[in-house]
């Protein structure tokens, strides 16, 4: 109604703007500003100096953390996608609608349950004297050192991301037009050709989105690298926590955080761009 200005639409529109402005944009902007502040006698003073950036970016341990985090998150994204795919394929094409719905239902549950307790359970399971090594010993293998290694961290990442990746992949596979697949068979495509020429390209956006989420979650995670990966070398998240919790070096932690956000968004946008871009 152009003639009377109604309050109504704004009552619904404004709360989010106010809230996110105050408690989402505000904190992030402050964090960016903070990265240029001065720390004197364990107190921060607003300033505009590049010292924090210089101190962090010139350190070898920062770049070690940077690359190990990027590498592990990328590996986790690829691994999770590969491990999830056969399961997603089965759920999308080989089970009934009802089974699929229940499977998704059960995959959502762990996403909202304590990740911390699950990581602790893995600590117990993967321990030198734990059940998994006991089983391995029973068949004459091991014991393997899994805890506090890259393997331990990767197990943790998979616990975190697999449910979500399976859900996203299943949805995108189930959404493929069945006629398309039948047409491929009808035209004489073998199962392998159908999979690589028809199914995977059709579900590409969903598959990439799944991998991107796996990347985002693993990249920012601190529990798996800390409690299962032994935090050596530290990841970016561990670096932020160490820098924040010890010695009030918040501005330096902010530098690490900004580097993380920039990297994360670059990778995510590039991947999403690749997902949609080539599909002309």
């Amino acid at each position: 109604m152009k003639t009377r200005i109604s309050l109504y639409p704004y009552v619904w529109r404004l709360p989010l703007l106010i809230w996110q402005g105050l408690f989402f944009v505000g904190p992030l902007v402050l964090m960016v500003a903070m990265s240029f502040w001065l720390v004197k006698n364990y107190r921060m003073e607003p300033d505009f100096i590049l010292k924090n950036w210089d101190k962090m970016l010139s350190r070898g341990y920062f770049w070690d953390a940077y690359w190990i985090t990027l590498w592990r998150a990328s590996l986790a994204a690829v691994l999770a996608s590969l491990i999830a795919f056969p399961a997603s394929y089965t759920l999308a094409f080989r089970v009934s609608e009802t089974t699929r719905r229940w499977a998704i239902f059960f995959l959502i549950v762990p996403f909202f349950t304590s990740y911390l307790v699950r990581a602790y359970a893995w600590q117990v399971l993967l321990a030198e004297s734990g059940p998994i090594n006991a089983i391995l010993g029973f068949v004459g293998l091991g014991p393997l050192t899994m805890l506090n290694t890259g393997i331990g961290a990767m197990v943790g990442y998979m616990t975190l991301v697999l449910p979500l990746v399976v859900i996203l992949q299943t949805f995108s596979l189930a959404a493929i037009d069945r006629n398309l697949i039948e047409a491929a068979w009808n035209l004489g495509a073998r199962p392998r050709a159908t999979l690589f020429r028809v199914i995977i390209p059709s579900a590409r956006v969903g598959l990439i989105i799944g991998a991107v989420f796996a990347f985002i979650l693993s990249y920012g995670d601190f529990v798996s690298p800390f409690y299962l990966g032994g935090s050596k070398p530290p990841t970016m998240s561990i670096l932020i926590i160490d820098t924040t919790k010890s010695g009030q070096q918040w501005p330096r932690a902010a530098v690490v955080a900004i580097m993380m956000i920039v990297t994360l968004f670059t990778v995510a946008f590039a991947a999403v761009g690749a997902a949609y871009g080539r599909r002309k």
Partner: protein
Amino acid sequence: MRLSDVLSRIYVLALFLFVFLPILTSVVFSFNSDRFPTVPLGHFTTHWYETAFSRPEVWTAFGNSLIVAVCAAALSTVLGFVTAYTDYRYGFRFKSAYLALALLPPTIPLVIMGLAMLAWLGRLGLSGTLPGIVIAHTVMGAPFAMAICRMRLQQMDPSLEAAAWNLGASPWRAMSAVVIPFTVPALISAFCLTAAVSFDEFIVAWFVSGLNKTVPVMILEILQGNVDPQINAIGTVVFLTSMTLVILAQLLILRRSAA
């Protein structure tokens, strides 16, 4: 059934086993008598529950978690609903920026949210208080609530609200008599899910909580010190709480969309 069908089902079951193994382990060891978790198991005991819940700080932490979860869930649900309704009802300039602002928080790593919140809430004098944790958890929960409400509104016939105006309801009245009643199942499940998110969240809470610890923050601190099977007992209770919330939420979503 062909062999490949059998194998693929076994694969799916193995994947589910992997996902649920830590949850099951935690429950099993919470009733196991041995102090150090080894195989074979010791005997059945409720000792760890008794020890854990005889500590007053555990009860305080549960109380804190409950207060924070209820408040954060209520705020998230309200914020999520008004945003979902705006998206459903209106088109306006910069709407995609508006939606990005609404949905972006989950993409920011929790550690970074924790740091940013710590600094910001400190400036507002809310650092180390329960309201501070509530604020942080609302920021994280609102996008989930918004997504759930938006999906429900998607199922609403766009004429429904107009039909209410047409029958003499003012926009406000149509909201309370039609839009909200229609969205109620989503509001309840959004409340449950965001409560579960808050009940399990420990990183941001750890950054901003100070002395007012929530349960997951307490678990985190126990994990950093002497590991003790009490964690399994507390963890099992936490699992049960959040799983109940999540399953309740999902049943509401499933039942309503089937109808």
